């Protein structure tokens, strides 16, 4: 990793900064559409998995298992090449959006399923007793309660999706990683390895770090609230205070 301090290499990166801007734009674009698609698929299959009807559950299960147990790289290649060889290629970025959306959608479906299943059955029964239909029950009663359970893992999946945009490289992608790699290995632009990779890494970090921090902060908050609700907290506090005193005595 020489060239960290070479002014020439940094100058080169600055001269070709549009390459990185374009890559970042493509990555963000792919990620945004992918997240939307994955949310739609996640809600759809998550509701199917909790619907209680056996065949709907079965379909959701098959989707989740097949997608979760094969690499996203394989799915992207599959989609891209099968379209390309049948003469209906729709471009790299569109392929990436769709396959990343489908891949993350499987994880989102599991997140939604877990969130909905965490709501006690009495809530469903109460909603029915009040005359809510299925949509009304989900929209007004179940989802508002489960959203706080769903959000932290869902945001983690979004972070994963943003990192997975790097998969576009294998189909000759235009995302940030591919642009960086093409830049450092290009005949006219090549050589500035260290600064280019640093810029690329920092850009990813700036996007992903706040998101994952936010997710873990939410999760901690949730755990704390749960603990507060638990009755046993009081007794635990007493025990902790006692041990604290004992330590003081020992000192």
């Amino acid at each position, binding site marked *: 990793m020489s060239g960290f301090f070479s002014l020439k290499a940094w100058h080169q990166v600055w001269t070709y900064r549009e390459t990185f801007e374009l890559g970042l734009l493509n990555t963000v674009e792919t990620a945004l559409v992918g997240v939307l698609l994955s949310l739609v698929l996640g809600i759809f299959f998550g509701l199917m998995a909790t619907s209680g009807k056996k065949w709907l559950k079965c379909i959701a299960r098959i989707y989740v298992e097949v997608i979760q147990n094969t690499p996203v*790289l394989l799915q992207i290649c599959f989609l891209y*090449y099968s379209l390309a060889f049948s003469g209906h290629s729709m471009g790299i970025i569109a392929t990436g959006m769709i396959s990343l959306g489908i891949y993350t959608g499987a994880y989102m479906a599991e997140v939604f399923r877990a969130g909905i299943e965490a709501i006690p059955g009495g809530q469903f029964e109460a909603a029915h007793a009040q005359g809510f239909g299925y949509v009304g029950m989900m929209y007004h009663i179940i989802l508002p309660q489960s959203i706080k359970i769903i959000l932290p893992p869902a945001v983690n999946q979004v972070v994963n999706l943003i990192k997975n945009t790097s998969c576009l490289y294998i189909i000759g992608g235009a995302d940030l990683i591919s642009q960086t790699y093409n830049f450092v290995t290009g005949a006219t632009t090549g050589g500035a390895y260290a600064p280019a990779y640093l810029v690329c890494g920092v850009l990813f970090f700036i996007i*992903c770090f706040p998101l994952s921090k936010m997710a873990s902060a939410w999760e901690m908050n949730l755990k704390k609230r749960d603990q507060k609700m638990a009755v046993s907290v009081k007794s635990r506090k007493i025990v902790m205070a006692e041990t604290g005193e004992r330590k003081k005595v020992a000192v």
Partner: protein
Amino acid sequence: MEDLQASLSILQNPAVLLYILKGVAFSMIIALLAVVCGILLGSVLALVRNYCTSQKNKVFGWIATIYIEIFRNTPLLLWIFICLIACPCPKHFERQLFGLTSVETKLLFKAAVALILFTSSVIAEIIRGGLNSVAAGQFEAGHSQGFSTVQIMIYIVLPQAFKNVVPTLLSQVITTIKDSSYLANIATIELMSRVKKILSSANMYNGTGAIHVSDVFILFGFAALIYFIINYTLSCIVRYTQKSRKTVNGKMSWNNV
């Protein structure tokens, strides 16, 4: 239909099949290696991040935190590319090994290093979760029995922490097997890249002289099937361990009541 039969004949070619199956073996070995090294490195990172909080060795805690956060928030492919130019390769690996050319062994070593570094940061967070789940009373109990801090870690805290995270670690194995397909971006060593390579020369194997859609379906379908069988078996094991843990915990809480 004829296309499909021609595509199927690719898989009946024993040389092709052997080539792909060797790729499966490489995938498994790389993933297993990454997880084992990741657990070793990850435990150290987790311990340092969690317990180096005193004024004197705060710096180490910070370093571990920075390492974990950086690797968790950047894509694996970036680290593979970085390792390609930045990771030194020992002379021992710059020769023909395991039926690979010397260039490929070199690439394999560098990419494996990247995968290990990346996986260790993820596993560190998993193990940290396990460490946090061990009750503080365990430390006090250990101290009162005359254990030193290191002994408490080895004999009391770490075994419990690992026991708590076995299902999560197993599902990390699944993720690592999937992540090993990222190596397809730089070299033809493991399953994914080998299937892709065969697809690119499928016209030589299927006897029709051209690549059809059915070749894509058959070859990638075959690879997907292999990945699915391995990962699904693992995820069934994960679910089984989670379930048995729940019943054990349930029994224990009953005893406590």
